[in-house]
């Protein structure tokens, strides 16, 4: 009897060992590309950037039984919890403010390891867009994370031990660092620095994943001779740009696709003659653009500047490059902060442009065939009130991601309806980091002409923009969207409610109050046959901080220095 028990026990132990060694395979490019259903291996879910889970255990018929499985409190969540969790082989990795990294048992929440990088607190205190962190990358047995003081770290995936660290930018001088998640592909870690409002040249870096050595650097401000000519009066020195959200990798063309931020100052007093007048005469390449870089060399292969001479801060920094195929054609879908969605081929040639957002008046339109801006609204110094500029500086879309569901063929994306009044100022050029930002105007949030501020989740055809359904929210949701093969769409909203909708109809099937607003990621994964949904809760930061004074209500008492990772499964 005992002997039989012992034998069967040995068999079980043996099986467990085999299973765990099979599970502990390395995360590499091929594995991220194939995006196995149990994992979430890269910021956008896979290189296709679908933010979609093929898991269907939690589905439209049983989602009513969804409840909290476990929670994790990262602590010191200054400006909320903004990160996208990652999951590999049953372990969940996520980051909090101050670039804190946690590795947790994905089934129980038990902490396996944590790493709190030592940061210069005096530097952090001087920074404006700090100290939140939006995620990590996995590859070759390591977890990669950027820090607010300009470093990229390679941590041992099993222990959290620092295997290498590389200083990429002089944050003491520039005051900027890294808040966005890196991207791992083909032995390389790519990360873009903060940019836009600062006098820098917005570098995007590639680092060798094994050694931590820098491979190349691409300057999004005047990074080529051609681009240098698009910054009149030496205005490249006032800079901007950067690529602070992770883009993606196209293995077929060996290309990194990345979105870039705006030039500085955000608002220009040039008037209509922006090619020769104003703070930064010319198109200001490669700001507010989507760019394709050779992953091995960092050489620019192709680009499209979504907003030539962006005078509104409606940049292209959103990191989604949704890769689709339809009727034998390959497309890349990229939302622009101004509220338009651009559809490209794989070489970033424009195939279509459609409107996600109703209230847009910085241009009359964008030519869907060429991407050319029609009826630009270029300001001179002075007030902009009639009508106010739409959208608001927070954008028609925020930096968080939508979701494409290959089963429904629909793209689920949050749109934001709000505007702003402005007083554009003729400022003196800022060429060295002085007081920090370089905005170029006083501004204030305003309702759309003849309407109210609101947000909406749209279910649309990603190529044509045809709308199937829409759900509205009194204040724009700021978190990422997840859709699943269980015919579900999850939206974590700003008030703190996590909603689940029928992916075909938009009917709300379930919701849960997480107790604080959302502005981070949401993913799904599976361990030992059980499906989980993990969402980052925790409000605060550049856009969230506008909610209390403008909307009052629950935002008045909502903490902006707190957060939790909340994980759900079926009862």
């Amino acid at each position: 009897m005992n002997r039989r028990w012992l034998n069967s026990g040995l068999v079980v132990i043996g099986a467990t060992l085999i299973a765990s060694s099979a599970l502990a395979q390395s995360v590499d490019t091929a594995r991220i590309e194939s995006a196995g259903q149990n994992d979430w291996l890269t910021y956008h879910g896979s290189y296709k950037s679908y933010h979609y889970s093929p898991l269907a255990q939690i589905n439209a018929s049983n989602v009513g039984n969804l409840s909290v499985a476990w929670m994790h409190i990262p602590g010191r969540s200054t400006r909320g919890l903004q990160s996208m969790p990652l999951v590999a082989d049953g372990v969940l990795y996520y980051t909090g403010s101050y670039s804190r990294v946690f590795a947790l048992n994905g089934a129980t929440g038990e902490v396996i390891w944590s790493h709190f990088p030592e940061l210069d607190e005096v530097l952090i205190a001087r920074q404006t867009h700090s100290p939140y962190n939006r995620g990590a990358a996995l590859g070759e047995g390591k977890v990669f994370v950027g820090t607010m003081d300009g470093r990229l770290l390679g941590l041992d995936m099993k222990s959290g031990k620092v295997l290498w660290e590389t200083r990429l930018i002089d944050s003491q001088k520039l005051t900027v660092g890294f808040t966005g998640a890196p991207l791992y592909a083909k032995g390389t870690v790519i990360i873009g620095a903060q940019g836009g409002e600062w006098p820098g040249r917005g570098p995007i870096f590639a680092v060798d994943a094994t050694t931590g050595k820098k491979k190349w650097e691409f300057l999004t401000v005047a990074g080529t001779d051609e681009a240098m000519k698009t910054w009149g009066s030496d205005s490249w020195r006032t800079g901007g740009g950067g690529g602070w959200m992770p883009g993606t990798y196209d293995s077929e063309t060996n290309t990194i696709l990345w979105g870039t931020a705006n030039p500085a100052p955000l608002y220009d007093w040039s008037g209509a003659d922006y090619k020769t007048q104003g703070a930064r005469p010319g198109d200001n390449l490669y700001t507010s653009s989507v760019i394709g870089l050779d992953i091995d060399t960092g050489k620019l292969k192709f680009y499209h500047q979504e907003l030539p001479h962006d005078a509104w801060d409606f940049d292209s920094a959103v990191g989604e490059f949704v890769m689709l195929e339809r009727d034998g054609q390959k497309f890349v879908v990229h939302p622009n902060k101004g509220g338009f969605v651009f559809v490209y081929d794989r070489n970033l040639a424009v195939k279509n442009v459609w409107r996600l957002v109703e209230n847009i008046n910085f241009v009359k339109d964008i030519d869907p065939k060429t991407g050319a801006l029609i009826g630009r609204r270029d300001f001179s110094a002075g007030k902009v009130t009639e009508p106010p500029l739409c959208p608001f500086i927070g954008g028609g879309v925020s930096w968080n991601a939508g979701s494409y569901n290959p089963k429904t063929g629909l793209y689920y994306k949050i749109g934001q309806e709000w505007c702003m009044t402005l007083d554009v100022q003729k400022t003196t050029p800022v060429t060295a980091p002085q007081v920090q930002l370089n905005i170029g105007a006083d501004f204030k949030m305003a309702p759309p002409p003849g309407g109210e501020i609101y947000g909406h989740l749209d279910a649309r055809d990603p190529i044509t923009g045809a709308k199937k359904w829409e759900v509205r929210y009194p204040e724009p949701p700021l978190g990422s969207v997840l859709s699943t093969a269980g015919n579900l769409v999850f939206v974590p909203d700003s008030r703190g409610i996590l909603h689940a909708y029928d992916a075909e109809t938009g009917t709300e099937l379930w919701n849960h109050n997480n107790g604080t607003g959302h502005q981070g990621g949401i993913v799904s994964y599976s361990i030992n046959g059980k499906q989980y949904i993990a969402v980052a809760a925790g409000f605060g930061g550049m856009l969230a901080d506008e909610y209390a004074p403008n909307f009052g209500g629950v935002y008045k008492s909502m903490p902006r220095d707190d957060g939790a990772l909340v994980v759900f499964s079926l009862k």
Partner: protein
Amino acid sequence: MLQDIALQDIVLQDIALQDIALQDMELDTLKLHLKKFTALLSAALGASSLCAAPVQAQSATPAPDNGTFDVEQLFAGTCGFCHSDGGRAAGKGPQLMNSPRDDDFLHIRIKNGKSGAMPAFGGAFTDAQIDQIIKYIRALKPREG
């Protein structure tokens, strides 16, 4: 200048430390590296103590003195990003027009900031410049029309 040199040294050491991590950890080389590491560590500690003292002075280039110090432009460039409409309305930060806070409070808040809410500008502005900012705040009136 001294600080720049010290920072560079630290960067160099980072590279050296990386190199160590990459080496095969054979016993002989390990001993050698341990010696090297101890030497580097003491150098690094020396460098960081050099950095530690003038930490405030390491901040970004100070704003130019009075003559060209234009607070209205400063609001359009930086402060107004959070204090909406040039300080006349609440945004990410509070409304500054008609602020109930006294001058000392404003001075200290501008200088030291508030964790997770407002950056510290003590390295960017002199006390005299902070006083000019307060003067601008006190003079704020609603926009006409």
